[in-house]
């Protein structure tokens, strides 16, 4: 078989695996979504189904967040960390100015 045909064959096999996996994934999500509370701990298959449904839910939430531009808790905490850092840098600057002010005051002539 010529090289390019072999390549096409390989890619077709890859697409087939991908499609089968995708169908398997969708079926797992569907089974997981219909699980009753507690069913996820029934065995490894049930666990995978339940986990797939949870991941699919999270994916939908992520899609909605990205579409609306809303922020996740993680992002919020990173902003809050940056604000903390900024506050510290300002306070540090204030400290240095206070020290500098004290040194400049010390230069005042005694009779002033």
């Amino acid at each position, binding site marked *: 078989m010529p090289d390019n045909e072999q390549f096409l064959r390989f890619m077709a096999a890859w697409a087939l695996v991908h499609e089968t996996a995708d169908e398997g994934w969708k079926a797992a999500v569907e089974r997981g979504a219909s699980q009753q509370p507690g069913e996820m701990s029934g065995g490894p298959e049930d666990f995978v189904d339940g986990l797939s449904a949870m991941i699919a839910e999270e994916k939908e939430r992520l899609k909605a967040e990205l579409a609306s531009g809303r922020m996740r808790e993680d992002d919020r905490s990173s902003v809050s960390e940056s604000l903390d850092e900024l506050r510290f840098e300002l306070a540090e600057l204030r400290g240095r100015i206070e020290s500098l*002010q004290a040194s400049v005051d010390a230069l005042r002539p005694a009779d002033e």
Partner: protein
Amino acid sequence: MSARSREISRALVGAALRSGGSRALFARELRRAFERLGPAFVKLGQVISVRPDVFGPELVFEMEALQDSVPALPAEQVRAVIEREFGRPIEALFADFDDTPVASASIAQVHRATLATEYRPVVGAVLPAGTVLAVKVVRPGAEAAIRADVEAARPLAERLERSRRFARFQPAGLLGELEASLCSECDLRREARVADRFAFDFRDDPLMVVPRVVWPLTGRRVLTTEFVDGWRLSELDAARRAGIDGRALAVHGAEVFLRQVLELGRFHADLHPANLFVTPDGRICYLDFGITGTTSPEQRLAIAQVLAATVYGDAERAIRYSAELGLVLPPGREQVVREKVAALMHDTLATPPRDVRAYALGFLGILNAEKVAVPLGFGLLVKALVTVEGVARALYPDIDITEAAGPYATRVVARWAMHPARIAERGPAALRAALRELAG
């Protein structure tokens, strides 16, 4: 040669003669000679204690025990420094000032005072009027006296530099380093800034205390902080009697250090029992931020890898990642060093009670014997780890800090490996490898 130069030469040669060729004995004699020779040599000893890249482990660890205490200065002289620094009488600066010093060392001495008006520090809650303060004052003339001693020691250092036996200790370079360290230690504003940064870094840690700086009462020669009371590590029996949980504090102390090195990238590189104490409410207080080390993100990951490999007894991996920290093994000696390190790991770390100090000393000893240059940052880190273990053992003698270090380092490595950027970086390569495998 001046009289002082002769005195210095006599003291150093005497130390060498009394040691009878033993490294440990020489280290002890040299430490005693430095104590007798005064402040400049106490500082020189401190410089040696943080240069494991140049000096053998015996000398480095012996110099940690230097006693830096000198007779106190009369209170009038201390008051004069403070008044000159701020241009106001001491009564206008503090509600109260205690003329009896709390501590007296070669460069500075510390007095207790009381805050006159409330102050909002850079980190933490407002300090109310009446807060007890620690006022650290650089001794007048300390800098000039040390500089004079450095000049007196210079001809000797230059002569030693020409000798084949001593050249590798770079005596002239060491004197230069001493001068630089002196300049930075005599400006207390630098120490104040580092203290604030540490306080900020550990603001979410309820078991850590860093005294808050009072900036309007801080200048080049005066550092004013809140006074934190507690037990020195030599007084821990009293702490235990008061119900302090030594084990919890020891584990936490080790984690605090690992967090500095592996997460924050800034660490206290001059940890010794005098710079740490335990407060009555069971917290660890850090003092004296004169010497600090830094680690880059790449170094942090490599350190975590070395640490995890060491704790889990994987000599090959420990040495591989040490190379990323600048440790270069001479060609042809890799296998020998690996075998020696593996044997050392087996002897010191394989079974409890694990002896981190013996491992670190042995490791630096192997590098010394194999003539492997130890990068400064690497040496400082090994030394700091040993000190942390010593401190943890002082708090709780049966502590095994590898129990805290192993999981901590593993978490850092795992977090790095699972980082989305890392997965994105490795994903395509992994996929390509899989496709190549499938394509046969």
